[in-house]
């Protein structure tokens, strides 16, 4: 059994009057492929926002390596910087693809030379070098997705949150990224993945949490869980 890197306890989250999350315990294991499953609207993205510390407006507690996480901007910035998120329908900033991919490094005050170099390397690796000079509004659906993946990986995150990555990706790319994410896990990165893709679930999952209507309905290793 692997170590627990993130643990959420008694999480409640409401929009206006509607309660969309009401969880007892959710665990994310270190250096493993953690899957978050459930039907549309069951609260997966909402939970991802909370675990990745992007949303701090919730009731309950989140622990990182056993330490209670605060909800103030200042306290959690350094933890957040160990994480990356690949979003469902990624938002790209105005400007070039190159600027978009380099931005997280700029936030971390890397030097322009290093940024330039890392962006080049990452683009080569993901086969999107031909897109670097394009503006973000000029990309196809799959190209957007690839750029957003490059942007998330460039900081070499400790934990990677992924919300339906295969959306819009062609067959080749899909396979490539499945392989890439597995490699990352093998290298010690923790991945939390939301997906509806049976292939991914059957072949990649180490641990699975299934949500329904804001509640955990099943949880365990991929052998234990009947999804």
């Amino acid at each position: 059994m692997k170590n627990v890197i993130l643990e959420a306890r008694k999480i409640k989250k409401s929009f206006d009057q509607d309660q969309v999350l009401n969880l007892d315990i959710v665990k994310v294991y270190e250096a493993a492929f953690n899957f978050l499953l459930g039907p549309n609207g069951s609260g997966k993205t909402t939970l991802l926002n909370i675990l990745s510390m992007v949303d701090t407006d919730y009731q309950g507690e989140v622990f990182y390596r056993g330490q209670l996480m605060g909800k103030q901007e200042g306290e959690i910035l350094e933890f957040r910087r160990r994480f990356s998120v690949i979003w469902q329908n990624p938002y790209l900033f105005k400007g070039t693809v190159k600027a978009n991919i380099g931005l997280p490094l700029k936030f971390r005050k890397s030097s322009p030379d290093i940024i330039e170099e890392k962006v080049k390397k990452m683009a080569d690796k993901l086969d999107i070098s031909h897109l670097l000079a394009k503006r973000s509004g000029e990309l196809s659906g799959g190209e957007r997705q690839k750029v957003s993946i490059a942007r998330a990986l460039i900081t070499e995150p400790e934990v990677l949150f992924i919300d339906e990555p295969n959306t819009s990706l062609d067959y080749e790319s899909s396979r490539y990224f499945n392989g890439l994410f597995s490699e990352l896990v093998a290298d010690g990165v923790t991945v939390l993945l939301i997906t509806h893709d049976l292939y991914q679930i059957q072949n990649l999952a180490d641990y699975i949490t299934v949500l329904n209507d804001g509640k955990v309905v099943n949880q365990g290793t991929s052998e234990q869980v009947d999804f």
Partner: protein
Amino acid sequence: MEYIISGLQSALMLIINLDPEVTKVVTTSLKLSLTSTLLAALFGTPLGILFSKIDFKGKFVFNTVLNTLLSLPTVVLGLFVYSIISRRGLLGEWGLLFTMKGIIIGQVLLILPIVMALVRNAIHDIDEKMYKTAISMGATGTQQFRLLLSEARYGIIGALITGFGRVIGEVGISMMLGGNIKGYTRTITTAIAMETNKGRFSFGLALGIILLFIAFLINFIIYFYQIGESR
């Protein structure tokens, strides 16, 4: 009609001859309006962003008050500031009346609501996802702020251009707080008002044309550097 033609002619002559009096009012106007716009941008942009993001009770009323302040006539604002910086006013001892500083105070107050309101409108249309993405990328508060400025660039620069246009073209505050003192606080607009008063309409128009010419140059530079490159 003849005013317009002779106005154009004398504008041309004034520009060609670099008339020293005209040069003086032009530089005064420029100094004032650029300083005022800069100060208003410095305070108004963050305030506009703040008020578009935070939610508080009475925000509805606050927004309405902000919109109302767009109607504030320059004479009234001028009077208001006058009654504070006049010798009998609270800050009378500082001797701000009939100085450039006095005008700047009034002008900043004039466009602060405009800048705030237009920045608020620009920010309002930014996608909620932009914030989440920036946060998840580990941006600090300042970095989020800068990113927001850049994403809403078009609207924010629009706000500043509108503010600049308002101050360089306003006359009530400059007149009331500056006193239209020759060689000192006389601006293009107060000079225009004075010439018009004297019945020298075509000279007034000539100064107006010069003002527009200068505003054009400034807008050209801003547009060229900031908007031209975007998208």
